[in-house]
């Protein structure tokens, strides 16, 4: 076992984990952040996306120890029913949610994009979201939702 200290959604946790334990397992099993989903275990589907020091990563490909001393945002740290993030509101209002399994990863990828670039082109949105697979929606309403959120964030 090794010691791990990391910040998740602005709260610091100290715990012991296995040296080969994946970040997704630390988040889901040890800390209970089950909004982070596992879809493929090989970094292809993006369901396990979290934001690590401002950048999206597939938490199934990151070791827990690699997050030592770093800041993580999971879906649980992005808005709530009283104060939804613009991306979350846009996903609901555009009808971008169907089965919902890809949704947390999608929301985090969109948030990370808009945090850096509040006025992305449709092409930039497509590229930013292309690491997150969805099998239900055909992406149509997801891409529209990100555009809508971008308009709100940029005030255009």
């Amino acid at each position, binding site marked *: 076992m090794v010691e791990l200290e990391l910040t998740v959604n602005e709260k610091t946790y100290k715990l012991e984990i296995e040296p080969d334990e994946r970040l997704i397992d630390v988040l889901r099993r040890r800390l209970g952040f089950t909004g982070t989903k596992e*879809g493929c275990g090989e970094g292809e589907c993006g369901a396990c996306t979290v934001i690590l020091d401002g950048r999206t990563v597939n938490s199934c490909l990151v070791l827990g120890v690699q997050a030592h001393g770093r800041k993580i945002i999971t879906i649980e740290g992005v808005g709530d029913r009283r104060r939804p993030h613009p991306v979350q509101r846009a996903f609901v209002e555009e009808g971008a949610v169907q089965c919902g399994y890809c949704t947390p990863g999608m929301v985090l990828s969109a948030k990370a994009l808009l945090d850096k670039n509040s006025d992305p082109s449709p092409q930039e949105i497509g590229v930013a979201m292309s690491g997150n697979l969805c099998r239900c929606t055909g992406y149509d309403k997801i891409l529209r939702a990100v555009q809508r959120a971008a308009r709100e964030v940029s005030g255009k």
Partner: protein
Amino acid sequence: MTSVIGSRAVREDAWGKVFGQAKYPADVNLPGQIYGVVLRSPHPHARIRRLDVRKARELTGVAAVLTASDVPHNSHGVLFRDQPVLVSERIRMVGDPLVAVAAESPETAREAARLVEIEYELLPALFNPEEAMRPGAPALHPEVHGESNVLYHLPVVKGDLAKGWASADVVVEQDYSTQMVDHAFLQPEAVLAQVDERGHLVVQAATQYPHYDRGEIAHALGIKVSRVQVKTLSVGGSFGGREDISLQLVAALLAYRTLRPVKMENSREESFYSHCKRHPMTMHYKTGATREGKLVAMEARIVGDAGAYASWSPNILRKAAIHATGPYEIPNLRVDSYAVFTNNPWTGAMRGFGAAQPVLAYESQMELLAKKLKISPVEIRLRNMFRTGSTTATGQALTGSVGLEECLQKVAPFLWKEGDRE
């Protein structure tokens, strides 16, 4: 107030999903839970000569190692119950479940599964439906389905084919084939099963049909339906791939035997092996039309690979036959549709359910006929398409809503006409 019907009402679970609060089966846990895994066959067709689970049982942290003899009624299946919960003797496909293990951690359960010793007698396997349907091919399901591997055959016959071909000015004939595909829903199968304070077996799962699952669990374990609760949590897509029962049966069995909550989660690779696939089909089509572009005759032979178990195959190949003409009136026809057992992964329900594969064939045939007749793709369809009052290949009169022509009229302007290019 405007009507609620036809509105853009927001789906009731959308907020819970954007906040990551929606609970899928992998997201729920119970104190004291153990973790189940399934050991699956690496061989497509084999007999189990010897199965020794002693080393697996002796591993520290193992709560149960179960084999076929531990299943009271070892069968399930949507139509025939021809699929074992755990194989007792004859393996029919790669991925057939052989042994169920539960342990204090998923890692220990997987380690125990590796300690199971199995000796196989490998049997010649059938991978090609055409070969499997030949007389003399070894029967894959003699006990349930008899000596032939042809699980289902439906002929659809209408009119007078000889007259039809005689009146055809143009004929196109072509082979088509579609591939095996996976549902690839994003959420791999997962389940949490427990015997609760009432003594009832409670199974939390993502399924398309909890009442069916309840019946299969009650049957396999030999307990009453009123003692089994299947509770559906959020379902991460299904598309037909969650119709046959999956991990629910094994988890229920492990929980019932150990009296501890049992959690099971498929990896993506395990998911590929633990649900059905879309039927690959080969389709031979011959279609004839008059100079005016009226369809007058069609013959089609459709063969679907059912894989190792029946699942919904008869219904799917029936649906393929019924829909084989496409949405067009053809007065003279014969369609023969077959579902055939092989030792490939089993095939079953997937969005479109047998009506998806023939589209490639019948809509290609329409295009080829239009070319030969030098009429537009829109025109040939308008001359033959179903309208209210049309009769289908099975003699069914379409008395109600048939909105196809309006669909075509809406789409047609988008198609390029001669000379639109460059």
